């Protein structure tokens, strides 16, 4: 029975707990987190700063291991070493950051093809694939530009292209509109909606309930606990 459920859920967290040790004292960032996210969902994790959203995102994104509990991603247990985690991030997760985190010295094409190189693509194949991806986000004409020559919205689109280029299982967006004005923010949200309607699973972390309302399911985190997990009936479209 549980096997069947597991095969349906992309993300399955059981009793996840993360404890930080600072000096002599310990601090529980999140505890008793049970969470299932299925393929094709559009989930927003919302909560005030310090609630444990980032910790949760780091664990979902395989940037960090949980202190205890079980987290399986796409049926695979994620309790593993650094290298294995890097591999999971590379293959299964596409990150979109608040500050875009593009590498300033590289052209946007090189930024987008980088995950493919880590995946073992040859330069030529990676270039082709990255170019196609950039065309999809409407930046096909700018591939030689450096990120600094682009606007914030464009940079976030590059970041989205980079997140998508490896065909990941989950797109993990951490405050994707945080650094953008509301108009471009709406554009980015629209893009995420479209990606979701194409079948991509999206997990968005935000402190802003209005932004969260764009998702189909809203998980509220407070003081390290999930306080509510409900389908969004007030869904807005950008």
């Amino acid at each position, binding site marked *: 029975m549980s096997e069947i459920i597991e095969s349906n859920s992309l993300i399955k967290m059981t009793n996840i707990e993360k404890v930080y040790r600072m000096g002599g004292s310990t601090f529980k960032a999140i505890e008793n987190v049970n969470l299932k996210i299925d393929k094709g969902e559009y989930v927003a994790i919302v909560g005030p700063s310090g609630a444990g959203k980032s910790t949760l995102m780091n664990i979902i994104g395989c940037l*960090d291991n949980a202190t205890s509990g079980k987290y399986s991603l796409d049926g695979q247990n994620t309790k593993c070493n650094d290298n294995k985690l*890097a591999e999971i*991030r590379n293959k299964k997760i596409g990150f979109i950051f608040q500050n875009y*985190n593009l590498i300033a010295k590289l052209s946007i094409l090189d930024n987008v093809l980088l995950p493919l*190189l880590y995946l073992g693509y040859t330069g030529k194949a990676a270039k082709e694939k990255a170019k196609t991806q950039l065309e999809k986000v409407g930046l096909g004409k700018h591939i030689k530009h450096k990120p600094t020559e682009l606007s914030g919205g464009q940079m976030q689109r590059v970041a989205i292209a980079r997140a998508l280029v490896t065909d990941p299982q989950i797109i993990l967006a951490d405050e994707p509109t945080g650094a953008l004005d509301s108009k471009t923010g709406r554009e980015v949200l629209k893009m995420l909606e479209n990606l979701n309607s194409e079948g991509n699973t999206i997990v968005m972390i935000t402190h802003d309930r209005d932004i969260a309302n764009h998702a189909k399911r809203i998980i509220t985190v407070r003081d390290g606990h999930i306080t509510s997990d409900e389908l969004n009936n007030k869904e807005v479209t950008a």
Partner: protein
Amino acid sequence: MKITQLFKMALYSVWNNKVRSFLTMLGIIIGISSVIILVGMGQGTEKEVSDEISSLGTNLITVSLTKTLNITEADLTELKSKPGIKAVAPEVSSNNVNIKAGSKSSTTSIEASNASYAAIKNYTVSSGRFITDRDVKNRYNVLVIGTETANNIFGYTNVVGQYMYVSGIQYKIVGVLTAAGTSTTGSSDDKIILPISSAQRLLKTSTISTYYVEGESQAKIDTAMSYLKMFLNKKYGLRNLATSTTTNTYYRVLSQTSLITTATSTSTSMSNMLAGVGAISLLVGGIGIMNIMLVSVIERTKEIGTRKAIGAKRRTILIQFLIEASTVSGVGGIIGVLCGYAGAYIAKTFFSTSIVISNNIVLGAFVFSVLVGLVFGIYPANKASKLNPIEALRFE
């Protein structure tokens, strides 16, 4: 990740920070070029010395007698008939002898010997003739003059047939030596060569303590050596002395080959010392690379975090930084080699320093420079690879 991609990425990164990369390379450039020039100079000197010695004839054995020994004309004939020995020439020499021609006077050195001397010492005359056995036998007051000496007292070198005074005694010039040029031991053209019998009378000496023995060929030099030693042992009455010893309280025999070995070993150790000095500057260059790489790791913390987030493994980051470090030092090495060649060319052309640049040194220096980058890149690269991606992403 493909290694070629890593190389491309590293080269790109180095190229992107041109000024910084160049400044980082500077230490390596200076190190490598100084190693090449210094070692080149050392090897040049080495070659010069060994060339000079072999120009005197590699078949040459020098005999120095410590205890007086009366070697007669008959003895010399006997020695000459031994296997491997082609010619024997006794030598009497003296420095700072006063010479005079007309109103001009000067000092020079005397080398006095027999007719074989010319062949043994590779002397030729540009005009006139050399000393003959007849000159020696009859104690003729004749001499062969060096070009510089001739210039000193005559002002010209076409002096065959002229008369000059040596220590107040009148001598007839019968030949002029071919100019040999200046060597490390001074001018080879400032000398006069006299028949040994005449010189002995002039210098009031009857003992001869130096003999030159010419071997038939370089291959037969060992045969000649042992026969020579056997002869000397017999003459001194040394029955029990092994012929293997070349130096004892009675005499010393020295082949030119062993002289080359001795002389070049000095230059070799000098070369090694110079290489050491260069290696130290390379080491300093390596520390410079480590410094800059450490700064670069801190500067690029966020980039490293991003790379890790999108899937770079520890090893990938480690290799990326190692390649960057060794690319900087390797490119520095190549520039250093070119600078070394340029420096050597300048030294050769404008300061007529003899420099020999061997391919081994160039290759060795280049490989060493890459190694310096690798070794000094390990610490920063390791630091970069161990960065926690979450903290690195948060780094401002």
